[in-house]
């Protein structure tokens, strides 16, 4: 029994029929083909599926698609400017080796963005807490934290 919902997805209003069993991750990947959002575990333990809903970073693999009704959802595909100019976070991840295999990167950038949107210059501890739900196996997080710090500095200017 599908239900129609309306929400804002990457700055555009969308109307879509949603099955009550779907997660937001499923809706994003399978219906909208926004495949930058990854499924690393499917049970909310790794953060690869992180998207921003109403300003908060959420695990889209646990988030019921129906709950998106009326809300503002941003995925990695909605982070760069509409002309393709990278967001300072994206630029910084490339420049500071915050990305290796890249599988955690979308979720990592979304968690970082939700943090920076709320606090322009977070402390290292706040950054680490902000991405604590995002597992990365490649980097040891060092250069991810650096990437976020440098992006924050750039955004402040």
């Amino acid at each position, binding site marked *: 029994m599908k239900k129609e919902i309306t929400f804002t997805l990457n700055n555009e209003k969308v109307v879509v029929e949603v099955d009550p069993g779907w997660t937001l991750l499923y809706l994003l990947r399978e219906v909208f083909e*926004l*495949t*930058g*959002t*990854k*499924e*690393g*575990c*499917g*049970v909310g*333990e*790794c953060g*690869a599926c992180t998207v921003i809903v109403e300003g908060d970073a959420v695990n889209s693999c646990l988030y019921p698609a129906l709950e998106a009704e009326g809300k503002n959802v941003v*995925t*990695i*595909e909605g*982070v*760069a400017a509409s002309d393709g100019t*990278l967001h300072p976070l*994206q630029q910084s*991840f*490339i*420049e*500071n*080796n915050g*990305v*290796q*295999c*890249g*599988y*955690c*990167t*979308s979720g990592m*950038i979304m968690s970082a963005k939700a943090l920076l949107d709320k606090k322009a210059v977070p402390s*290292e*501890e706040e*950054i*680490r*807490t902000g*991405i*604590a*739900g*995002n*597992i*990365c*196996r*490649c*980097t*040891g*997080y*060092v*250069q*991810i*934290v650096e990437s976020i710090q440098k992006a924050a500095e750039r955004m402040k200017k």
Partner: protein
Amino acid sequence: MENLLHIGKDIPRTAEIDKVTGRAVYIDEYKRPGMLYGKILYSRHAHARIRSINTEKAKNVPGVRAVLTGYDIPDVRVGFLGDQTVLKKDVVRQFRDEVAAVAAITPEIAEEALKLIEVEYEPLPAIFDPLEAMKPDAPLVHETDARGRPLRSNILPLPWKFNAGDVEKARQESAYTVTDSVSTPWINQCCMGTSGCVAEFDGNNNLMFCGQTNVIFGAKQRIQTYLSNIGLKGKKIRVINPVVGGSFGTKLDTDIYEFICIQLALKTRKPVRIRFTREEEFMALPPRQASRFTIEQGCDKNGLLTFRKVEAILDNGAYTSWGATTPSVMMLPISSMYRVPNVSFQATCVYTNNIYSQAMRGYGNPQAAFAVETSMDHLAEAAGIDAAEFRMINRNHPGDVTPMNLKITTCPLEQCITTVKEKIKWDEKRGKRNGRGVGMASLIHVAGGARVYLSDGTGIRIKANENGEVDVLSGSTDQGQGSPTVIAQIVAEATGFKPEDVNIVFGDTALGLWDAGTHASRHTFVAGNAAVRAGEKVKQQILELAVQYIPKMVKRSMKQQKKKNPDFVEPELDYTLIDSPEKLDMKNRMIFPKTAPDHPYFKTEVSKILTSGLHVGVGESKAVVAEVFWDPPTEMLNAEMKGNYSCTYAFGAAGVEVEVDRQTGEVKILKLVSAHDVGRAVNPTLVKGQIYGAAYIGIGYGLTERVQIVDGKVVNPNFRDYKILTANDAIPVEAVIIEDPDPAGPYGAKGIGEPGLVPTAPAIANAVYDAIGVRIKDLPITPEKVLAALKAKEG
């Protein structure tokens, strides 16, 4: 060393922009028209006879396109000892045994169908402890070998024995000796992108296989053998990589799910994708093997090592993958870490009904290094010598030939140890026993390729296009380490283009030249060497064109100027400055005479030469393209397990400061310094990324990670119960790059993919001992073990 423009620079990873915008196509996104989704049914027992399999209900589920069991496909053996079939129909020997597979129009339907497959088992006695499994009366995991000959033991027929010098004599002559038994657990590689592949046959039964393998030609060969054995001899196979979400060893062997995917594609005549869930990644993918070591070492009264004797028992699990070959790398630190004249090593791989094992970053080195480096601390203490000083006394030197016949070229181990000592404040902090302590460990690893196959070569083809772009076709793969950036830097340096001009194609057997695989920390070294050589050839070709075309272009330009301005006076130009390629050079896209780099008429942008020089008319002409297949001058191990199997070796040291809570047993790392000999850092930021990442996996190995297997079953198949470190653990890691350019390396570079992992766990264990006086010999060092050890010590 010459003035380098691109080597040693922190060039950003712009080539991988798709990874930050969400556009990168991993196996999850690799989709083909009409593609089906495959799922696998695993065994419900660790050891059982299959009495019956009923797939009727599953076949009747709408949307199901195929259900396969071992009865539906040829009974062909796979794996390097040929000890398993793709789908098991008679006996299952581990919980991850693949019993049936389904292809359906959605993954959900395939999953539903799996639940309807009925399998009746008759449980058999199972064995989970390798020591028990070695006993003569132990139940056999395999009753016959691959050729059907009866087996009498669970011990694998693998000859891992190494001897050098006279250990017995050396023991008698030693002033001090110590013996320790240590063990290391199963470790899951935890790639963030789970395993998967897509198989697709065309109408001629040629196969397109999109897989995550980091050995594309090896995978192709294994698949070719398999196809040949199932009656598809002579069919063409193209192996391609999607973007790969981490590898860490998991992509070295061709896994059973990949053969299953091929069978489902063959049966349905449709493309089929199999992609693991996280739970499958833990339960059905071979981890780093569990190992036990007994190590005995001795030294003379001055602290010089006299001998090292190591016996290892490796839990092979039920089948054999590359895990069983890790002793070839265990031998490396055991024979060659520090100067030790008399060495004996024996490794016994034992079949059990546990999950089988494979490669992981560092191969056997992290396991063996844990034994060697914790024993070094123990022996130093027995001899009454400071543990850092003890390592310094016994350190390797440039020019050494080790008992394994490894030829040490550059070796800044002394500098690595000194750096770590200083940064961790060793002299100030060591030996306090006040709950805080410092510890150290060193490493040696292959850093100039590893001749484990007949060829250890890599082919690189470089073509310069008419618009000044450069395409590099590599037979290697990239799994996230940054090869597109590093190879672009090397190619730019060798050719005279800029790194951003270089476009690299990896991971396609149809386009790339043969490559032994992106493993053994070999890519930068071997592919880099091929790239330097091919780049130099391309440059030579361009300079030859320049000799031909610069004068023509200059003269044409003069004529035009004269036409425009009749008063133009043609300057006297010395064309001998550019009359041979040797007199020219090219840097940052500009071609110029060596003796007059800023010559106002002769300095020419390369794309102008390429545009003029290529497509010059009818008939045969020449494109600017060069290829080099380069195989390092190394040796395979001989029957005695000796041979210089890498062109150069990397050294390094890790120092750790810990604080141990005596109440909770918790070990907190206050600081980790990891100093590594990298030859020359092609891209320091990327090199540090490798060191940080490897060190973190090493910390997990030391403190938190363990695949828990109870009676053959993985009981912690998720990130809640399998503890890998998060950003919140906030462990301060300092990566130190030690540069000592290696003459054989591309611009002096050595491999650095694996080393960071190797010394971390033993350095932690040694620091824990320094803090509280107990040696934890069984990884990981959990609070429970610390408390138990403290309790035992305090009686």
